[in-house]
């Protein structure tokens, strides 16, 4: 319990740091990118919305930095992230709310599947060191060196021609209304196969490799020799003795590299025009929609923190030592 409490405190601290970073970044930049956006949309934005953008970006204010900071927090706690310029007049929170489920669905599921699959393959490769499987390792290295988005481009070129089963863009058939019914769900699945496969192929090899290396390290421990000596079956030694212990560093590695993975997978959304946060970020960058960018950064960071906390809970369940103290 103590372990979990410590981690929670740390994640709260990180969330505070990220939010503070988000507060300072626009203020450090010379010139006012947001001011020009407001001027361009003069007359179309309500006074309230302008006021909320001023708080978020600290435009021509005479308040001290500390007061600005307090105002900023007050506004964030009300869930007000400003107004999106790309999707005018929708507020940023609505835009993010629409695209978050897509990202969580695609990136969340593929990341977990890739971790499980990669770890399982890594157990095999590590246990049978020196067999033909080692010959495949350079190939996985090559696959993991390919940028996610480029693999997506190739996948579209190869699989998604006209008349193909795989659609090349979007999250669902145009004309359908998002709902949990027999028309929408199959269409959404059909649209997600290709992006999901892209993420799987390029992210899995990292797990294979780290799990293999851990297996190799663990399999020369004394307790493995003892297990062999006791006459336990090969399978039992490999899975219950070696793999179980080799898994722990991989789980903590999983938690730590989530931030990197999420960054990479957002690009796949861009290539496939998948209606998630990554594609939204891309559009925001293209149209210099700073409020939306900042909002997306915050939401991504907080999602990663929550995912990290979940990974810690998994670690807690796997490693009895953390429960004891």
């Amino acid at each position: 319990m103590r372990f979990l409490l410590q981690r929670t405190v740390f994640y709260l601290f990180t969330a505070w740091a990220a939010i503070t970073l988000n507060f300072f970044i626009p203020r450090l930049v010379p010139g006012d990118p947001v001011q020009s956006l407001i001027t361009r949309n003069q007359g179309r934005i309500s006074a309230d919305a302008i006021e909320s953008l001023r708080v978020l970006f600290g435009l021509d204010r005479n308040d001290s930095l500390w007061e600005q900071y307090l105002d900023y927090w007050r506004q964030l706690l009300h869930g007000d992230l400003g107004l999106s310029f790309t999707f005018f007049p929708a507020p940023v929170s609505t835009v993010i709310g629409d695209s978050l489920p897509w990202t969580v669905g695609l990136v969340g599921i593929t990341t977990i599947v890739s971790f499980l699959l990669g770890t399982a393959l890594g157990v095999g490769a590590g246990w049978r060191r020196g067999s033909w499987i080692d010959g495949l390792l350079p190939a996985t290295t090559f696959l993991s060196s390919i940028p996610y988005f480029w693999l997506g481009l190739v996948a579209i070129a190869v699989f998604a021609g006209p008349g193909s089963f795989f659609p090349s863009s979007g999250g669902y058939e145009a004309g359908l209304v998002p709902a949990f019914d027999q028309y929408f769900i199959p269409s959404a699945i059909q649209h997600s196969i290709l992006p999901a496969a892209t993420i799987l192929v390029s992210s899995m090899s990292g797990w294979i490799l780290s799990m293999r290396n851990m297996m190799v390290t663990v399999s020369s421990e004394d307790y493995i020799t003892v297990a062999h000596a006791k006459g336990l079956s090969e399978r039992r030694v490999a899975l219950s003795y070696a793999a179980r212990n080799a898994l722990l560093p991989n789980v903590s590695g999983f938690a730590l590299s989530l931030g990197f993975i999420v960054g990479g997978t957002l690009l796949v959304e861009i290539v496939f025009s998948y209606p998630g946060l990554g594609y939204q970020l891309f559009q925001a960058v293209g149209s210099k929609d700073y409020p939306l960018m900042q909002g997306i950064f915050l939401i991504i960071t907080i999602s990663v923190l929550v995912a990290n906390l979940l990974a810690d809970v998994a670690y807690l369940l796997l490693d009895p030592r953390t429960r004891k103290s």
Partner: protein
Amino acid sequence: MTISPSSIEQVIPGQGAMAQPSATPGRTKRRRLRFVANAKAATGLAILGIYCLFAVIGPWVAPYDPDARSGDVLQAPSASHWFGTTHLGQDIFSQILVGARSVMVVGLLAGVLATILSILIGVTAGYLGGVTDEGLSAMSNVFLVIPALPLIIIVTSIVEQASDTLVALIIGLTSWAWGARVLRAQTLSLRRRDYVEAARATGERTWRIILFEILPNLTAIIASGFVGTVIFAVMSEITLAFIGISSISSWNWGTILFWAQGQQALAQGAWWWFVPAGLAIAVLGTALALINFGIDEFVSPRLRTGGRTRIRTADGRTVRMRVGFTPVLAPKPAVPAPREAAPRVDGAR
């Protein structure tokens, strides 16, 4: 990009290849070259060398000006245009050659910056301990957990038309945390070693202990952290160019992909527009990853891919090695040895 937890963290130096006693003076020279003799590291270094060469001479040997337009619009690869042409008739081969410089400069610059930061923060935290350690570790953990790529995208997009140097600076400042974490853990285990204690007892200054006693033993970890950061920096730079944030007036491989995507190269079947740039990135990434495996295996010999698992011993028997058992292949003794001296292999059976 995935950063796999490096095995180095689990390995205590002193057990690895570095610390093996040099048996005879005659063999020291061979040991020094052993890192290069590792097939993976050698391949990686060779490919990296070729890339560096093109980064230097690329703009001079490029057959065309990468910006020059011509009448050959959207041509497939041919003798005059090796990698084909763009929608404006620009030569893609020249764009790749010219772009190599920007990619390598940003990668190396960001790598150097992040490595210096990670040494400063990681080693200080590990060596000094106490409140300094807690503060610095908390800081690096925060940077580790915050998703780097979205942060880099946002910072770069706020700065209009970011130059290569600025991009390298931003990437370097945001990607030091992993290295710092690994270095801290290693320093923590080194600082209580006897030779460090001895140096402290003889009254050496702290900076001297860190510089001359601790740092040399961290070389492998620092090198692998550097290579890892370069991979990340190259990928980030190309991503920034691909989504059109950094300056699109200078060429790098991401810029090529940016135009290919923007001009619907895929829909027009112009595969040559995006395949060469992607392969160039992937091969560079593979080369760097290979160097890192080389370093990993250099530090922790166990990780070496077995290659041959059947080995002929000196006395002519064939031995099959198993995972987890390090066979002791004793040289054939001059006098017939008793049975206990026979090679110990296949221990568990």
